[in-house]
């Protein structure tokens, strides 16, 4: 390949967006019907799937950012999802329905890409099992809500697939978009670094540059957010201030503080037990993924996604954050080897998914 045609090839997509096999569509449908049914049982409208953080993303989409110092305000929410909401709304879909619609469709694409990625890294059997578990994972109701997680999962799976196929510029775009949608998107740079290291002998100088760009794309995109906030709100630190008002501030002693304050926090918010339980389950799943031969850069990214948020001094929402760590599902799939166990685990996950969706009436994910 000539050096001139290389960049074009690097942009050349994922080959084609992988077609979702029927069983995958079936599991997606099963999970989404369970979520929608449980949500409609709480209140027969889009209300359930459009509330909590969804309301804030919608406000950003409708009115733009506004920092109210000392109070929870919307600069705490990343900009890409509201931009997409505006795009969907421009097609004539109401604000309330735009988020759940976007998320549900994105989740089907995310499952397809996750399956493709898992198949590339592991066996067909494990890929299929992991994808099934992801489709009906208890916290996966978030993928049907007006939250950016489904879309970020698309990007988190697409970036390494693109990199594995040598489409480094596309990987860079996906990594940048992921970082603009959720802070966890930043960690996709770790598996990309691992892939770039593996391919170092084969990459031409131009492609090495593209690979390097894909590693820097996330942090660079992330910098654009405070730059934008500085422009419109005259405060580049608006995100940090808003996060502080929401009770989230990173500190070195945050992890210790999270454990030290846990009894008191549980007394005030009993639902926190869900996030604490998932935190430990996620750690076990990362261990299982390591035993199964998951590449270390992926494990590091998963650990960062699960553990770093606790450095804010709280376990709050950690169960949801972990959804963006693919190794957790590879670990879970590796733990269940027989078909009978797989069926039992899928059934249990599905029941838990319905119960977890019903909890939306009381607590945010």
């Amino acid at each position, binding site marked *: 390949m000539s050096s001139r045609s290389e960049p074009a090839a690097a942009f050349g997509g994922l080959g084609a967006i992988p077609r979702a096999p029927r069983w995958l569509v079936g599991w997606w449908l099963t999970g989404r019907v369970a979520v929608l049914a449980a949500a409609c049982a709480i209140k027969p409208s889009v209300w359930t799937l459009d509330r909590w953080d969804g309301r804030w993303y919608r406000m950003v989409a409708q009115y*733009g950012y506004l920092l109210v*110092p000392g*109070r929870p305000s919307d600069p705490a929410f990343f900009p890409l999802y509201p931009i997409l909401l505006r795009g969907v709304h421009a097609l004539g879909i109401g604000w309330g329905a735009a988020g759940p619609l976007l998320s549900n469709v994105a989740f089907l694409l995310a499952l397809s890409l996750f399956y493709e990625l898992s198949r590339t890294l592991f066996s067909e059997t494990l890929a299929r099992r992991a994808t099934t578990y992801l489709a009906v994972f208890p916290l996966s109701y978030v993928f049907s809500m007006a939250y950016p997680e489904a879309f970020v999962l698309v990007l988190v799976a697409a970036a390494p697939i693109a990199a594995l196929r040598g489409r480094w510029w596309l990987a*860079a775009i996906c990594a940048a978009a992921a970082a603009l949608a959720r802070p966890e998107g930043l960690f996709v740079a770790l598996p990309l670094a691992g892939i770039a290291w593996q391919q170092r002998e084969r990459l031409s100088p131009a492609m090495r540059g593209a690979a390097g760009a894909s590693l820097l794309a996330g942090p*660079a995109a992330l910098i654009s957010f405070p730059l934008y906030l500085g422009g419109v709100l005259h405060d580049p630190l608006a995100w940090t201030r808003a996060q502080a008002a929401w009770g989230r501030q990173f500190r070195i002693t945050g992890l210790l503080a999270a454990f030290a304050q846990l009894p008191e926090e549980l007394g005030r918010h009993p639902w926190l037990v869900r996030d604490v339980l998932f935190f430990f389950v996620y750690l076990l799943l990362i261990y299982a993924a390591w035993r199964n031969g998951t590449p270390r850069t992926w494990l590091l990214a998963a650990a960062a996604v699960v553990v770093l948020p606790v450095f804010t001094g709280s376990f709050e929402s950690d169960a949801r954050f972990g959804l963006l760590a693919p190794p957790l599902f590879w670990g879970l799939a590796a733990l269940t080897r027989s078909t009978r166990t797989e069926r039992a685990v899928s059934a249990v996950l599905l029941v838990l998914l319905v119960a977890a969706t019903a909890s939306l009436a009381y607590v945010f994910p």
Partner: protein
Amino acid sequence: MFGACGVAASGWALQAAALPAPKSADRVLADASTWLHEYRFAVDVFHAGPRPVRAACLRGAVVRRGRPRPGGILSFGQRSVILVTTGGRVSLLSGSRLRVPPARLAADAGCTGALELALVRAAQTGDHISVERAWAAHQPTLALEVQRGDQGRLTVYVSPKTSRPLVAVVHAKNLTVKTRLYLTRIAAPLLHRFHLPVPGSRAR
């Protein structure tokens, strides 16, 4: 490095092109709420009857039924002292019950906590907010108007340069309460003058 700058610039351009900039009314509201957040104490001059009435409101945690709750104490000196809790509940601590201005509207207009909450709620719920040039407190101001549904209308006149709240007007049903706001640092002589407790002491 060049590529990273390109990505950052593209990200910024995407946000600038695709997201709406906050409206000037929203910006004024956010700035005004910052002033109210920073000042726990305000001296008020109410204009609700034949004569102006002087009062002061101190924001803080008030202990009700053994539990601290956000609220404040609005004092009209020897005339009456009112306990205000978030949610608009008022109860008489000492003195006689107020007729002019009505206690609840007085607390809505004269306490920084209640005013801040009203502005923040408007910002967080996308309520109709408008801003226009006006004249109040013997100076040019910006009139920030918030429609609060069943709770009527709130107008806060702010300094055009700093957005410091100067006058608050609460319109509810057939009643209107207007107060000149003097946001002030807490000082012992002022607290004594208005029969207000020193912050940290328990109000029953």
